[in-house]
């Protein structure tokens, strides 16, 4: 499940920035890609794809810094009974 989640997040980011070579543990903020427009798109993507709503107090920079951190956030927030999507 984790693999699928991180792969989908990675796919989303690289689709938006085809020229970027991003790994799961790379700090995407340090690459200079993030502006408020992309941050909003990223949050919408994560919420919509994984069926979660990220509460205001969990929209923390560290949870969006890397694909790995976002994957962990999704796994924390995803309802326990949710069936992983392909």
């Amino acid at each position: 499940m984790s693999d699928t989640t991180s792969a989908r997040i990675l796919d989303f980011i690289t689709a938006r920035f085809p020229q970027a070579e991003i790994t799961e543990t790379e700090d995407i903020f340090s690459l200079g890609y993030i502006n408020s427009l992309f941050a909003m798109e990223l949050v919408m993507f994560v919420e919509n794809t994984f069926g979660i709503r990220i509460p205001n107090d969990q929209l923390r920079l560290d949870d969006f810094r890397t694909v790995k951190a976002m994957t962990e956030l999704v796994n924390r927030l995803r309802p326990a009974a949710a069936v992983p999507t392909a």
Partner: protein
Amino acid sequence: MTDQLTAPAAAPAALPAPPAPDRASARAFTDAHLVPAAEEMDRRGAVPEDLLTLIGEAGLWAPFLPPALGGSGTSMVTLGEIHEEIGRGCSSTRSLLTVHTMVCWALHRWGTPEQLRRWAPGLAAGRLLGAFCLSEPGAGSDTAALATTAAPADGGGWLLNGTKTWITGGQRADLYLVFAQGPSGTIALLVPRRARGVRVTPIEGMLGTRAAMLAEITFSDVRLDSRALLGPSGFASGMVLTGTLDLGRYSVAAGSVGIIQACLDACAAHTARRTVGGSPLRDLPLIQAKLTDMVTDVRAARLLLAEAGRLKDAGDAATIMATWIAKYFASTAAARHASEAVQIHGALGCAPGSPVARCYRDAKVMEIIEGSNEIQRMTIAAEAHRRWTP
């Protein structure tokens, strides 16, 4: 799932269900109440109270809110259709709906259950009107230059200081969504008009959307409790602004489609009536070319709007860029066709009370608000480079 909007605590007690509006009902409303009154409202510089009440009775203030919050749960596609129809009749009224929609959307997306309970039912019914306060005398396109500050106050809460200007509906609104420099970036605050230290100065005689009751609003040592903060602070706080502007852009795109349709309706009628050299204007190839472009562009703009709305309904992040493009296309097309509509009407198009003259003035505003044409081009071009530069 942590959906604060469907949590029981957020649900207000037994609200009367407003009618669920759609394109057909908005069209009927526009033809009955806006088309006959728009000129008078433009001249007087205000949308009268009885019309504001009628908008509420028709369920048009915030129909996209879920029924639990007093809305009708309409889709974003339908919301776009409603704002198009309203915009066809009166851009000032549509502008009031735009800023109210922005406030309601931000509250819906980011509000705590307590904020939703406090504000949503009144906003949904139109008993409370919202306004969006971003621009300042020294900061328009350049939102990084905001000088309004929200400082953490002694004993908790916030101390708000600064001046906002060009605020649509500012003369009449009850609740201001104010963007200010917080301790670590821009934050959004819900500020009741009646808060001590809020001063409202009307701005009269704008070029367009003259009845939209603009105001300059000054906040002098306005003390707000901690519950005034809407949405996250810190890294994600910019998203409140990005998302709220996205809704504003969507509504302005819809209103621009409405302006093109109004120009087309007026020109089709006028060119059938008016004769030159013994033949109706509509038989002249140069006039036909203008109408052809109006017909084509109104359809194209409507499709771009519907696509942006469909993506919103699907929760698809691609809606943000789709909305930029819809707004850019629709607003520039509206300005172009409103100019041609005046041309087609000749002196009648320049006469006092001419509907196409009002469209011409209103359409110009659409190219400036919610991201000017220049900012739109920069954003869309940046997207092109991001996507297609090898």
